């Protein structure tokens, strides 16, 4: 199977006139036709409007009127982020005919830069919990091994990028929902700094933890998308007036002298770690060293306590948002969503305040650590994605057990996951996190790594016939 182009290559080809926007949309459509039924990628597709937008983009290109750096490139959007094409279902029957209308600011900015919205992608209900086979939504499958889970909650967005059904996609990340499916599907996913990209126009999961972020094949693609989406929005009180660097330009720097702390988190993963992970991570760290980075072992402060504080916050904020519907129509929620939300009732107001205090302690202590190093590297997950059967059966963690992303949502720091190889034929990811508003350094290190490696170029093999797959 020929690998899909990167967003950067596709955008450059449209600009140069060597490929048309119509051809890109047709390629995305062909990939979606080939994979969607087997993998459960899209909740809605906009083939006709995307093709019309592509024709208009090609007309504009022919007369030299490019709309922006993403002119004519098809993207996909997680179905909890508003687009003019269709309201959000968010993977839930609770939304009925759909919530929200118009474009979210992040989508509007991408569209103004020339991007074409090709479809809305599948997700865990309301970006919470796990899929429910009893609900009328597909369980997203992993393109590398379809008996395994795609990861969540931005499942369809990661799969769409992995199979070439979109040049890039948007996700939301409240506990790792951009980075987890990206790592599990072998693509690149960025959680920006909290407040960097407007959350307005997306259905909240945890007000103080939510981040809209890009999923793409490369860090360079993420830089292009972030450059368009970043910046304050007057309707969104969580956004900040911090300067927005030229992210694509910031990729050019070398890594010589960059100080990277390494925390393998083996104390956290314990028996859940895959035996191949240490070797894959060591090989990736060797690449960073060869590129000139100075690596030192560190221990992230209060990893368990901050992960716990993030969970208390997330469950409390999610319950506050969904309480009325949960009271009156609890059976309409997916089973795991319902369980997660009711857990929010077990946390009191003092618990919520203590969780915010712990986040403040963590922010200070991590800030101290980040005076001695510029980035911190960990595994994104200490194991590849579980089978769908195992994920559904795991009442305790739902397959999230070896994942290490939630810590960073409580802190707000920018973080990216990049592919670093495979275990049992399934992708593994390396997680790089930086200082608040320093996405430029995070992206530069990830881009340098990808300039020296080929893992991000790997593409899944053609899919087996669905009749050969297990139930679910």
């Amino acid at each position, binding site marked *: 199977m020929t690998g899909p182009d990167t967003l950067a290559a596709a955008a450059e080809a449209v600009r140069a006139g060597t490929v048309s926007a119509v051809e890109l949309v047709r390629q995305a459509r062909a990939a979606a036709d080939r994979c969607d039924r087997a993998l459960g990628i899209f909740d809605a597709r906009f083939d006709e409007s995307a093709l019309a937008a592509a024709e208009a983009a090609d007309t504009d290109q022919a007369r030299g009127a490019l709309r922006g750096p993403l002119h004519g490139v098809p993207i996909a959007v997680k179905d909890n982020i508003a687009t003019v094409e269709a309201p959000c279902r968010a993977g839930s029957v609770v939304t009925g005919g759909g919530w929200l209308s118009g474009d979210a600011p992040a989508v509007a900015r991408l569209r103004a830069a020339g991007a074409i919205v090709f479809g809305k992608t599948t997700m865990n209900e309301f970006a919470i919990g796990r899929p429910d086979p009893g609900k009328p939504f597909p369980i997203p499958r992993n393109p590398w091994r379809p008996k395994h889970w795609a990861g969540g909650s931005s499942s369809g967005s990661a799969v769409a990028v992995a199979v070439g059904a979109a040049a890039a996609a948007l996700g939301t990340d409240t506990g790792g929902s951009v980075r987890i499916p990206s790592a599990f599907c072998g693509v690149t996913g960025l959680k920006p*700094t*909290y*407040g960097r990209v407007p959350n307005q126009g997306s259905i909240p999961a945890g007000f*103080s933890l939510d981040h809209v972020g890009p999923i793409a094949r490369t860090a360079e693609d993420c830089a292009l998308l972030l450059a368009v989406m970043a910046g304050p929005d007057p309707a969104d*009180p*969580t*956004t*900040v*007036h*911090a*300067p927005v660097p030229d992210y694509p330009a910031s990729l050019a720097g070398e890594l010589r002298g960059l100080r990277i702390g390494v925390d393998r988190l083996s104390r956290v993963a314990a028996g859940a770690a895959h035996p191949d992970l240490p070797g894959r991570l060591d090989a990736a760290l060797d690449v960073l060293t060869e590129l000139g980075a100075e690596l030192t072992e560190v221990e992230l402060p*209060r990893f*368990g*306590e901050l992960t*716990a*504080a993030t*969970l*208390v916050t997330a469950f409390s904020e999610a*319950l506050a948002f969904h*309480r009325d519907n*949960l*009271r009156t129509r*609890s059976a309409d929620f997916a089973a795991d969503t*319902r*369980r997660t939300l*009711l*857990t*929010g*009732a*077990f*946390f*009191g107001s003092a*618990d919520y*305040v*203590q*969780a*915010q*205090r*712990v986040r*403040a*302690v963590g*922010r200070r202590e991590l800030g101290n650590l980040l005076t001695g190093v510029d980035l911190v590297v960990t595994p994104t997950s200490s194991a590849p994605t579980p089978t769908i059967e195992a994920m559904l059966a795991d*009442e*305790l963690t739902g397959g999230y057990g070896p994942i290490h992303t939630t810590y960073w949502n409580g802190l*707000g720091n920018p973080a990216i996951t990049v592919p670093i190889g495979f275990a049992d034929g399934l992708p593994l990811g390396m997680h790089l996190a930086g200082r*608040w*508003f320093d996405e430029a350094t995070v992206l530069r290190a990830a881009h340098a790594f990808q300039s020296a490696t080929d893992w991000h170029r790997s593409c899944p093999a053609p899919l087996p016939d669905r009749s050969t797959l297990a139930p679910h």
Partner: protein
Amino acid sequence: MSHDQSDPARLLAAAGLPPDIESPDVVASQFAASRAVLALIWSVPADAEPVLIFAARAAAP
């Protein structure tokens, strides 16, 4: 109004959630998990920390 923090059924009721929202086994396991999480956050000495829920503006350069 105070609630018995050791009784999951009363906590659900206080939140306005129906008592049969989940089976007693599920409620008990979720409640046990919540106690483990709370033990972790209350182990952190954080009495003097200010609470900045929307802290992005404060932290911006």
